[in-house]
Every structure is written in structure tokens, then in C-alpha cells.
């Protein structure tokens, strides 16, 4: 199925793109997709997304404008943004 993935902040710098359309297996979870994206863009992307093979707590996911958890199952034509939650201080 086809989905759109958007990148912000350092994720955009590593992927070198703001958005891309990906063909992924139907019913894939967000965490499954992150494995694929980590493989696609290599160590730097994987280091941002994972620590000790677990998704980092400050990497968040918004699907169609709403925050979702990593076990969310993506649907065709979903628009997913991967974001780093840094906030102010």
C-alpha cells in the first residue's frame, strides 16, 4: 500500500527530503515502518530513531495530524510525520 512519510528537523537533514511516498506492506505498524526507514537511510537515521533496538521516547508520530503510538497500524494513503519532540526548556 502507498503512504506518505514526512520528516522534520534532523530527520529531514538525514533523509534529504521533506516528504516521500513509500510502498509498504499492508497493515504495517509504525515501529515496523521505522525499521524499514532505518535500513533505508542507514546508521545516522537508525541512531536517531532507536536506542538498544527500541524506539526512542522523544521520537513521535503524527498520522493525518493526530499523534499516534508506535503500534498504530498504517492504512493506505495515510500521511505520517516523524517528529523529534524537543520543546523549549
Amino acid at each position, binding site marked *: 500500500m502507498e503512504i506518505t512519510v*514526512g520528516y*522534520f*528537523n*534532523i530527520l*529531514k*537533514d*538525514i533523509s534529504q527530503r*521533506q*516528504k516521500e511516498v513509500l510502498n509498504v506492506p499492508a497493515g504495517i505498524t509504525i515501529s515496523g515502518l521505522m525499521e524499514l526507514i532505518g535500513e533505508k537511510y542507514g*546508521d*545516522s537515521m537508525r*541512531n*536517531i530513531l532507536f536506542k538498544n533496538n527500541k524506539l*526512542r*521516547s*522523544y521520537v*513521535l508520530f*503524527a498520522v493525518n*495530524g*493526530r*499523534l499516534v503510538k508506535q503500534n498504530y497500524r498504517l492504512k493506505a494513503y495515510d500521511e505520517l*510525520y516523524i*517528529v*523529534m*519532540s*524537543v*520543546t*523549549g*526548556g
Partner: protein
Amino acid sequence: MALTAFVDLSTKKISVSETPMDILTMYLGSRGYAAKILYDNVGPEVEPLSEENYLIFSTGPFTGTPWPTSARYTVTAKSPLTGIYGYSNSSGFFGPELRKAGFDVLIFTGKSDKPVMLVIEDASISLEDAGELWGLTTDKTEKILRARYEGSRVASIGPAGENLVKISSVINDYGRAAARTGMGAVMGYKKLKAIVVRSSREVPITPAFKKIALKMMGKTGKHPGSKNLRKWGTVHLVDPKNMVGDLPTKNHRYGQFDRADRINARSLNRYLEKNDGCFACPIRCSRFTRVKEGKYRARTEGPEYETTNAFGPLVYNDNMEVIIYANLLCNRYGMDTISTGAAIAFAMECHENGLLSDPEDKISLKWGDEDTIVKLIEKIAFREGIGDLLAEGVREASKKLGKGAERYAMHVKGLEMPMQEPRVTKGMALGHSTSNRGADHLYALPTIDLAGNVEAGEKLFPDLMPKIMEPTDETYKPEMVVYTEACSAIADSLGICKFSTIENYALYTEDIVAGLNELPGYDYDEETLLQAGERIVNLERMYNCRLGLNRKDDQLPDRFLTEKMMVLDIETGRVIKDGLTVNLRYMLDKYYSLRGWSKNGVPTRAKLESLGLGWLTDDLRDT
């Protein structure tokens, strides 16, 4: 009925009057209302450390009510650190207690001939001798006063405020600080050691207000951002900030720290005693920590992220115990942890570049030297040796040092830079530069992009998505800062914490309006509430314009404009991006235009009149 107490410390006369509701509601309360009082009464000719300067403690209409995070109060005066509009803001339980006693505003003027404290017990208000407390640290002062006035809350200064240290704070509830812009020195100059308040009453509210407040309490507590703050505290920011290059290191020379894992939230957890929260707070981000043994033995509330960075990467220290101890010392002496860390980092960079030799008493100024960090805090508090120089803040210290030291003084308008890296957080870069109290992450708190808050972005700036979400892209940062400066003024003026509003957008302006309109005298909709925030920002801007400030003062340190920064993959060292600087000229041009100000950064007559500030137009010096 809201009450204002006017305390003349020279004559010891106290008068209490009803606060004029029409003016109070126009400026919302707390920060906004205090700005109006300061503008009317403390003109350009008034020296910050003088009898004529006002010192204003003010609460907001939500302070002390069941509204979520309604713990905050503001301390306002002309700043001895910056020479311009000054205020700081604190939380805990002191503000709510003041409001429960019936006081919205305390105004101090004059100067006492001997140390005094103000004691409020419900409607009773008096000045009492504080001679025995003078010289004591804030924790000892508070302990004595809480024992003497059982059930009271206390705000006090420590030795730093007494010694007129320009980066001194006011401390309440042992570990809560009204820290920025040197309000402790104003209190010290006036010989006001403490304010004690005890009330047997509650803030009067209607059932309708209570119902909305409780609903908002649930909404705030359940927000994912609140849960994260509750679980990890603000120090959870260390790791992601380090990854994106937003962890100021070595006096802002770099944005990443190679030993961040030693000072992150997991490291702090080794010293965690308990989580806690302020009055009426469902977020409960506070962390009480304890170092049980060794030379940095300490028990304290905090440190927060800003303090952790200021005494960690900024001075190149990776010892968490030193950071906890430094936090404790700053609270005891009554000092701003941001400005103190920045002053030490300034000294270390000056030393590295041959502008400052090691001080006379054998402490080193080498980066990361633990003893130096601790001893410099004490020296600043007591104005001893090099501490006397640093007690003036980095702007004045650099002027006195000369020889080009100004290039290492990280400040805007005389206020030391907080712990964001402007070259990777362009909204913060603009917010620091335009803030009317000097470099400040809280004056605007533009975090929609940093937080990756797509929901807020879609709701507030749908036409600017997704570009506005990119932290290093300047294009739409002026739009964000104009909006968040208004929201920030609203939160401060209502007496609530930004962690319930623009840090994570648990609550939006429509939520606030629903509660505010249940309070007597307030009648707002979303548009007019945002306009009230804009009114406050314009009033504060005019305070500074009347002093001659304009665009030339909305400048960042040259480092951020000319020294190119890179961001590395923290695991492999690979360069992810390079050549980062700030295009401040573009952002200021657009910001002034959106604000309806001149290209020189001064409000126009038309703008002031549209905000009900026509009475300020006689003070305009720029068209």
C-alpha cells in the same frame, strides 16, 4: 474584590486600596497589570537601584484557583541588570497564598533604613523588623519564618540580593525562583528581606468556574506532553537537544556535548527522591534530588533543564553531582542559575583566550573545573574577587574587562542567554532577540516546531504547514513568535504555567476564555484575548522605546550570526549539517511588519491606538 497594597519602605506607611477592575482586566493581571503600573510610575530617569524604582509582586486572576497550573506570580521592576523593563515569574505555593489573603498586587517603593519584612495574615498587613535574618541564606530564612508563622508561605532574598548582585533572584518555597533580570537586587537595595503570607481563606470562585477548571485539569493532566514531563521532568530534553544540536556547550560555541549521557534524565534519576508539583498542577514535573555523600552533598528541588545545561555543557562539566550542588547553592544564595552559569562560562572562555588570568586564590578558570564552578557561585554571591566583576552580569563584566571580551558575552539587552542554540532553533533565535526583558526562552516560547507538534501546527497555522515545522528554517518563524509572544503574555498575566499552554498546547485560548469569562469583570473572546496579549507586548516594548531602545537592541550575540555551526551524528561523528548561522535581519523585518511596527522596531501610532494604548503616543520617538 481585589486589593492592592502600597508599601512605602522609607516612611513605613502601608495603604490598601481596591484594585481598579477596569484597568486590571484590560491588562489581564499579574505581568500585564504590573507593566502598566511600572510604565505609569517608573520613568526613564529612575535608576533601578533607587528609592524611586517600584518593586511589584502581582498575581493573576487564575492564581490560587482550581484552574490547572494556577500557581504563578510575577515580580516586576526596572531591572538593575539590564537597565530596562524587568520581570521574573515563579511558581510553587507563595502566589496562591497571597491571592487567598485577598491581595492581587503588592507595590514597594522607597528604601528602608534597616532590614524589614512584610507580613500578611489575611487582611492584616504590617512591616516587621528583619535584622536577625539579614545575611542568612533563603533556606534558613524561610525555615525560621515558617516556624514563626505556622502555615505561611515565604518569598525571600539571600546574600546575593543583599549584596546587590545583578543576577540575583527571589526564592519562594525553598526551591522556586523568580530568577531573571535581578529582582533580588531591587529587593536587597530596598532592604526588604522577605514577604510572609498566611491565609485562612480560599479564592472566591463560582460553581461554573470550578466546573470548567476541573475539566481543564483533566485535559491538561492527560496530554501526552504532560505525561512526559511528569515521568522525566524537564531534564528529559538533554538527549533530544543534544541530537539536534540544541544543547549549548562551552559558552554557546557548540550545540552538542560529547558526554551528555552523564547529565541526562537517566543520570539525574540516580539522585531522585520524589516527583512533586506546584499548587493545582496535574503535570507535576518537579524533581527533588539528593546527593547523599561526598563534597557535593545536597538535597534540593531540581535541577531543571536550564540549570542542568547552565552548569553542565555550557561550562563543560559532566558531573551531575556538581550540577545538583550548584542548583542548591544558587537557591540558597538567591541567584539566577541561567545567568550564573552564563557568567561562569563567560569567564572560562575569556580565560581560554587570555583575557582573564586565574584568580588570586588559586581557583582555575579551566573549562569544566568542578571546584571553580562551585567557588565562583560563592564569590559572585558575596562579590569577592572575580565574583565582584561577574556579579554585574556578562554585559557589564565584558565592558569592564575590555580587550574584546564583548565577543564572549552571550546576552541580549544585558540578559544572559538561556539554554537554546539559536543557529538550530530559529524561532528561539527570534524570540530571544525581540524579548522585551532581554534574552529569554519564555517570553515567546515558540515550540510548535521544536516539539514537532503537528496538531498545533495544523490548528494554528494550516496555511504555513509543513514549512513552519522546520526548526532551522526562518521563513515563518516571525508568524510563530508574534502568536506565541501574545500567548505567553496571556499565561503570565493570568497566573498560569506555560507547560499547560504553549509548551505543549494542552490548553488553547478557547479553553482559557471559557474559564476567564466566569470570573467577575472579564469578558473576552479568543480574538480579544490574543489582542490583550498583544497589548501587553506593545506596552512592554514602549517601556523600552521610551528609554531609547529600538532595532539595534534586538540583536543576538555576533557568534550566532557569523560563526558557522555544524551538527554531528552523536554516535558516529559524521557531519549531518554544516554552515548554520541565523538570518536575523530577515526575521526582524518580517516580525516588525507583522507587528505593525516601524522598520526600526518601534510601535506605530496606529498600532498603539488600535490596542487601546493611545495614551502612549506622546512617548513615541520613532515614526
